[in-house]
């Protein structure tokens, strides 16, 4: 993407395990922390090529069956977050965006 020239956006999706190691998910968190590190490095490296790199942390269970469970995140709202990241002004870009259902227990 850097060779084509001009602005572009890369959105990397990850989960809450990128911020905290939870019981039973230590190995998964090891990978997710790593993805966060790679994304931060890429965001810095690609800035001068006008490539906006963002990490979307889906701090939630994602509803897979179209229910109205308010404790889960729906794919549509998360897709809205991706569209938002893709359309940002270069005057204020987001490198890490976390989303979580308001009704879910949340640890910062």
């Amino acid at each position: 993407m850097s060779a084509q020239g001009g602005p572009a956006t890369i959105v990397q999706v990850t989960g809450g395990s990128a911020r905290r190691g939870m019981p039973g998910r230590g190995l998964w968190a090891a990978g997710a922390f790593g993805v966060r590190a790679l994304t931060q490095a890429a965001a810095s490296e690609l800035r001068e090529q006008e490539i906006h790199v963002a990490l979307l942390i889906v701090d939630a269970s994602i509803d897979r069956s179209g229910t109205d469970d308010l404790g889960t995140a729906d794919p549509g709202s998360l897709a809205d977050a991706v569209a938002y990241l893709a359309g940002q002004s270069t005057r204020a870009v987001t490198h890490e965006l976390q989303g979580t259902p308001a009704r879910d227990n949340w640890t910062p």
Partner: protein
Amino acid sequence: MPTALVIGARNLGFAVIERLLSDGWTVAGAARSLETLAKVRSAGAEALDVDVTDQASVLAALQHLGARHGRVDLAVNAASPYGGSRSGPFGGGPLASPATSPSRRSSLVPLAARSVFSARAPAS
């Protein structure tokens, strides 16, 4: 028309594809399973078979879109080693569990990210 590549198209990736299409984007959805690829096609996006852990595979998809549409404006990596027919405790299970081995799935995640970030199209 801006062009997007969405890697991982089953659940979240598919919702992203639908949102981008409705915003007027040209979209390609990348996945491995035939069922997901068919779903991508019927939504109106191009379906690409991509192995997100293989840098060459990711690069080929980007180059294909670049050649077809001029440039790629957005790449979304929503690939997950979980889902579909793959099973097992989410996250690998307790570290002390005899069933837990250095999980290949966990190592897939940074590999996938690295493939997307480091894929470079050659200068034309």
